[in-house]
């Protein structure tokens, strides 16, 4: 193999000093080669981001390199150790020979400067004197990263672009000086799956054009299998396993990597549920629409715009089953959950009924009030996406769990405590931790606490809004398993919201795929996975990356359904947004939105 461009050997990084010193990276070695991609894989807290930052001298102020070398050998140049490099030298390298892409394209771009000005800046800093040439090269790069209108993008501000376009701008910014090394820190984690596939493809294309070495930092083995040549697996700051992507993914040696591969969600068609039809619905939604009026400019809201967050959605949740809503951001799935929760009022004309099992009454959800609403609240609970934000940091776990009981005045204080302890035990945590605060727990444990809190009132319906998307894959699998067990045990019905078909594949009885506020395909889980019909469903399935190196992303399938633009779908699925096509039953209980 050729000489590596960048090689890290025995790198150790510490936070703090003296007694509070904490080594977060211990003896990591890796090497990057021109034109090759190395994936640095690990879960949160494994030290992968810090390692990537260290290569550019971008460590946070509290961290420092205590040992090891980062040797950089530019093509045809002399080797130098970046650990000892001067600030001036590092500054010359950054952005010019080593570029970096970050996870959050919105917050990584300055909202005060145009995209063009921010991308051009790198060129002007590293040698380009003439502003007009810089602009031209900028627009040329915009074209290469796939902006449909490079001139307009040049003058646009970040908040005027979609997430995918922002990440394209970031890629343009990091690669405009044709760096020898590109460090991509979770470049697609914040993006929808279909956008993720396109961005991964773009990074590969840029690599082919410039011959740069890429360090891809990620926790997603599906992403890795699609673009990496080599893999280094990190855990708690140590290298667990390293080798070529094919070897490691097909024949993992280290139990940690094996666990990661097993935990990666994939669709197992034979395991997908195929429920028997039922007519005992806990929630029945018919013709639910929700139109938001965006605030127009001007004193009297002139020029306000109507946004159809939901469009004539029909959805029923059979008692004791799991209905999954799947769609990308902005598809309206969370709005639908809010409507079912009595948190958002649907447009007039909707019929939304909650069938209470104990009283046998049918409750009209949007009109609920008084004792009926209180009862409804007790029977319908939510688990939110972000376990860090949804638990009050100032309340102990005991207080968090007992609060619903106190609000609904269910039992006395002693029993509340007993019930909290029992529930905490049930979700797999130690009841002796009741007195702790949420910050003492990891993300997965916090989500268990959230689930426990939701179950305290013995609800009938649990709405899970992306309950695992903020968690690491191995933790995600455990939480999904817990949810599955609890459903049986507590006789629950689930409305499960996710952007990832693979996540819901084992849990869901019925799946509704949403796009732009409308359900485009709906079927029992088994039928949907066996015979996905709508191009958008197909794109979602094709875009879900698979850790097996032989199952690469099918970009053509993604392109057919991606972008969520109904006008661009192939016939007979194409429709004008003002005039949506109807849902047709192609097989028994399998509905697809299509004309004729």
């Amino acid at each position, binding site marked *: 193999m050729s000489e590596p461009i960048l090689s890290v050997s025995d790198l150790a990084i510490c936070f703090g000093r003296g007694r509070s010193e904490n080594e977060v990276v211990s003896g990591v070695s890796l090497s990057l080669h021109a034109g090759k991609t190395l994936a640095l894989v690990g879960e949160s807290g494994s030290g992968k981001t810090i390692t990537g930052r260290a290569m*550019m001298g*971008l460590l946070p102020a509290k961290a420092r390199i205590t040992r090891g070398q980062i040797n950089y050998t530019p093509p045809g140049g002399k080797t130098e150790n970046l650990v000892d490099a001067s600030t001036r030298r590092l*500054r*010359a*390298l*950054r*952005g*010019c020979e080593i*570029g*970096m892409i*970050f996870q*959050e394209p919105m*917050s*990584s*771009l*300055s*909202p*005060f*400067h*145009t995209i063009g000005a921010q991308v051009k*800046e*790198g060129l002007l*800093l*590293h040698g380009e004197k003439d502003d007009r040439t810089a602009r031209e090269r900028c627009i040329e790069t915009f074209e290469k990263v796939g902006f449909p209108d490079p001139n307009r993008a040049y003058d*646009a*501000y970040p*908040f*005027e672009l979609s997430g995918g376009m922002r990440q394209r701008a*970031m890629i343009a*910014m*990091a690669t405009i000086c044709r760096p020898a090394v590109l460090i991509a820190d979770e470049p697609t984690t914040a993006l929808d799956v279909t956008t993720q596939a396109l961005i991964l493809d773009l990074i590969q294309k840029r690599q082919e054009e410039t011959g740069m070495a890429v360090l891809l930092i990620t926790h997603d083995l599906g992403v890795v299998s699609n673009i990496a040549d080599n893999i280094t697996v990190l855990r708690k700051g140590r290298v667990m396993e390293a080798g070529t992507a094919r070897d490691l993914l097909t024949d993992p040696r280290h139990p940690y990597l094996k666990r990661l591969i097993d935990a990666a969600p994939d669709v197992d068609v034979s395991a997908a549920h195929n429920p028997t039809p039922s007519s005992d619905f806990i929630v029945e939604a018919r013709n639910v629409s929700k139109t938001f009026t965006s605030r*127009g*400019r*001007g*004193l009297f809201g002139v*020029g306000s*715009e109507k946004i159809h967050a939901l469009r004539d959605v029909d959805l029923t949740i059979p008692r004791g089953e799991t209905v999954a809503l799947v769609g990308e951001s902005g598809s309206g799935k969370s709005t639908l959950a809010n409507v079912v929760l009595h948190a958002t009022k649907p447009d007039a004309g909707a019929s939304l009924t909650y069938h209470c099992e104990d009283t046998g009454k049918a409750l009209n959800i949007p009109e609920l009030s008084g004792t009926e609403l209180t009862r409804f609240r007790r029977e319908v609970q939510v688990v939110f996406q972000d376990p860090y934000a949804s638990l009050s940091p100032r309340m102990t776990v005991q207080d968090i769990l007992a609060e619903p009981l106190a609000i609904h005045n269910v039992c006395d204080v002693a029993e509340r405590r007993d019930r909290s302890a029992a529930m905490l035990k049930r979700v797999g945590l130690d009841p002796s931790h009741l007195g702790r605060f949420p910050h003492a727990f990891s993300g997965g444990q916090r989500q268990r606490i959230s689930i426990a809190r939701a179950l305290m009132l013995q609800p009938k319906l649990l709405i899970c809004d992306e309950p695992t998307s903020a968690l690491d894959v191995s933790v995600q699998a455990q939480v999904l398993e817990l949810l599955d067990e609890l459903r049986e045990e507590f006789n629950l019905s689930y409305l499960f919201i996710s952007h990832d078909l693979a996540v819901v594949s084992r849990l869901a009885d019925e799946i509704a795929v949403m796009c732009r506020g409308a359900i485009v395909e709906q079927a029992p889980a088994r039928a949907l996975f066996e015979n996905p019909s709508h191009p958008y469903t197909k794109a979602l399935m094709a875009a879900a990356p698979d850790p097996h190196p032989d199952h690469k992303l099918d970009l053509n399938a993604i392109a057919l359904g991606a972008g969520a633009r109904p006008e661009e779908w192939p016939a007979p699925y194409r429709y004008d947004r003002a005039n949506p096509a109807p849902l047709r039953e192609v097989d028994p209980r399998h509905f697809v939105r299509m004309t004729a």
Partner: protein
Amino acid sequence: MIRYLGQRFLTMLVTLAIVSALVFWIINLPPGDYLSNQIAELRAQGEAASIEQAEFLRQQYSLDQPLWKQYFIWLGAMPGPDGYTGLLQGDFGWSFEFDQPVKDVLGEALWLTCLVNLAALLFIYIVSLPLGAIAAVRAGSWLDYLIAIIGYIGLATPNFLLALILLYYGQIYLDLPVGGLMDPSFEGEPLSWAKVKSVLAHLIVPTIVIGTAGTAAMIRRLRANLLDELGKPYVVTAKAKGLSATKRVVKYPLRAALNPFVADIGNLLPSLVSGSVLVSVVLSLPTLGPALLTALRTQDQYLAGFILLFVSALTLIGMLVSDILLAILDPRIRFGGRGK
């Protein structure tokens, strides 16, 4: 952009109209008015001739009319008796206390008030911008603490005390002039270079005194804002591009931290104006402050009303200026509705 400005300007006019009504109403809340108080006093002394004259004045200034009529007459939306035209026509009314038209009572004070407050505002911004930025970038260092201590002293020291101290030592060591806003020989004189120089020399102490508290608060605010911004990912992006440390801070986070800084112009002005009343008395500055105090005490309604309205207008103009600056600084405000 022009639409945005037009809108802001319209809102400002509407606000000013509402404020004028409120001001007029509040001034008239205490029972009676300047003249009826005087009449009562004269009656107690049994001076019939003066009472007649006062009654005549009451009619002249329509103080015998219902309040809402008085308001519209004052505003100039309704014709008053004997050709009194009202604010909109540029007639500010009569000051009973000083027995002069309001215009003559205030005279130069209007512009000197603007001058003193503008100077204080500039002082606040010029001093707090670098100090606040340094405090944030060097957070936790001795420089940060030093700036904090100076700031707290500025906040905690009563203005009038600071005024006396500065006056005394300024006079002894720096030969700064004592009191007033210009040498007495220039009062009422036409504008000349010598007069400007005299005014500038007299401005130094009041500017520092009035500006200190605001500066201290502003430093803390800028420091907090900038600290927040310094931790944002786009700063790392700038670093990853190879920008030098100073440029990195000035071009990106400082720019973001300026937003609340600029938005505060409108809030600063009223506190400056009301805060400077006492200072003006102590330093015998010919600003609106002392006149306002007298006018409010004696229920000299036209004088008080005009001063309050003037100060409100100043505040609203400050808000307008900060809105314009914000729109220039922040593209999210400028282009919020573009191209979606």
